């Protein structure tokens, strides 16, 4: 077997197409989703290097100039470069969405495990609260939270995170209820393992797998909620570069026909959300073909 980069590349591509044959369209959905996410993450990381202008620079070009070779995506009413704002805006939305999903998964998974494992009144009360929050329109709850907190990255992250906790809670609690009846949990209890060890060593590894798919989809959803909140003017101060806020600002110039101000931030929000949804969808189909049929 050769050990050259080309051969490795060849094997990699061979592996990819092999997976493609095995899983069909789902594999390609997953790959495309991953590529979209990877591309945008790269863009966010390299923002200072690739952005042609400073996103806050209020003299980057003429006011409200349409896309041209100097300003690929045009400029806004404050003479800022739209492309640079798009590139830097990726940092905000990705950071908030991923952090929010992390917070809600950590809180949701641990509460779900404890609740399902302990049972009793604690479980009943918590389930009731979670179910009520779950059935209520998440966005409206997030609006209330975001409007009440001081604008800032942490506030909007919390506002977004709160509405996804019940999703993880319900999933993990249900699984914990089944798993805790399993023989291996019973034997662990029989040899005197403390509850925390049982939760950490026997239950957690079994529930974590299914939450991966939910997590990916969750980030995609959180992206749209984050942008929705900032579009409504909530959650972030104007000093932060954000796609949703740019969209809201561009809305004012819609009647006068400055189409580039609303088109590009929206395309980016949709593409990023699409990336995560495709990744999640591909993962779900490959890990568990029956999951999405419901």
């Amino acid at each position, binding site marked *: 077997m050769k050990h050259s980069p080309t051969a490795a590349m060849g094997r990699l591509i061979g592996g990819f197409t092999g997976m493609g044959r095995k899983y069909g*369209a789902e594999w390609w959905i997953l790959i495309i989703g991953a590529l979209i996410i990877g591309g945008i993450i790269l863009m966010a990381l390299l923002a200072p290097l690739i952005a042609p202008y400073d996103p806050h620079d209020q003299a980057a070009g003429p006011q409200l100039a349409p896309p041209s070779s100097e300003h690929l995506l045009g400029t806004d009413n404050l003479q800022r470069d739209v492309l640079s704002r798009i590139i830097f805006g990726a940092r905000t939305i990705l950071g908030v969405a991923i952090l929010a999903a992390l917070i809600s998964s950590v809180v949701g998974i641990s509460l779900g495990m404890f609740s399902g494992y302990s049972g009793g009144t604690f479980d009943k009360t918590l389930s009731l609260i979670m179910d*009520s929050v779950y*059935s209520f329109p998440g966005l*409206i709850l997030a609006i209330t939270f975001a*409007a009440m907190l001081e604008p800032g990255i942490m506030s909007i992250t919390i506002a977004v995170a709160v509405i996804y906790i019940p999703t993880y809670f319900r999933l993990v609690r249900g699984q914990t209820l089944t798993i805790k009846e399993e023989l291996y949990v019973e034997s662990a209890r029989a040899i005197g393992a403390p509850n925390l060890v049982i939760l950490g060593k026997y239950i957690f590894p079994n529930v974590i797998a299914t939450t991966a798919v939910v997590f990916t989809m969750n980030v995609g959803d959180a992206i749209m909620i984050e942008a929705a909140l900032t579009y409504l003017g909530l959650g972030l101060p104007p000093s932060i570069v954000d796609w949703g806020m740019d969209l809201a600002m561009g809305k004012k110039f819609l009647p006068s*026909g400055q189409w580039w101000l609303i088109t590009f931030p929206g395309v980016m*929000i*949709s593409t990023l959300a699409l990336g995560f949804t495709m990744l999640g969808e591909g993962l779900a189909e490959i890990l568990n073909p029956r999951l999405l*049929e419901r």
Partner: protein
Amino acid sequence: MLFILLTIVFVVIRIMPGDPVSAMLGGHAPDKVIEAKKAELGLNKPLIVQYGNYLWQVAHLDLGTSMIFKQKVTSAISDKLPATIELTIFGMLVTLLVGVPLGAYAADNRRSGQDYLIRLFGIVIYCIPVYWLGLMFQMIFGVWLDWFPVAGRTSPRVFASTFEQTGLYIIDTLLINDWKALWDVLMHLVLPSLTLGLVLSGIFIRLTRANMLDVLRSDYILAAEARGIRHFPVVYKHGLLNAFVPILTMMGLQVSLLMAGAVLTESTFSWPGMGRLLLERIYLRDYPTIQGVIVIFALIVAFMSLIVDIIYALIDPRVRY
């Protein structure tokens, strides 16, 4: 559910920074004035007393009086609620008319080019934020083509006061036989309901497709085909009717998405509904109105799941209560 949500919202909006008095009087009002105003609104009492009083009111179907404007919360809501209802009903209609046929067609032609195309459309449309789709529609159909109005429920020359009956403008205009006004109202509804409906249709394409696939595999479909019934009625009558029961269940669960979408659509299209009311009042820290809006949204969600259960029993004779 209603009680728990109410408690959460009640506590959250009160422990967070800002209050209606400072929102109303600004930051420089003398302490005495602020204290007096707080006492007048009952905000100086302990939280638990305020909470008890509020629950007592709600139990008597009274949502209180706005702390900013001297207006009953119920009357503020009944001004705005019909607009939201009209929007959501038409949005749902678009969703069903687009999502269900496309989903059924995709299932019927499983693994064909059309199937993949429809599924792709479903995924992509799901990922398009409803407010952005609205903006694009406004730009294309409102500004460039100038086919439809982009804001509000009526044109300025059509006066809402002339048909103040139910607040549902379609019914109002029909009641007074004002066809011109009806046309105006309908034209204003086109873009918002298309926006809301299309975004939600992605979910229904997937749901319908998945359920149709299950149904089309069942024995009675095979039996119907075997008896020589033409393909179309087998799929779209026998198949779709049976697939509709689980779809309906999911519809109940999508109500909260519908409401969230409506709030955003209202903001994009300057639609004077509940979402706008909530956003306006949330800045003013108008506690009773915020709580009232949340109560109404929760009631709508609960009411819709009840309706779904009833329809469920009506269309599926196997379900009896």
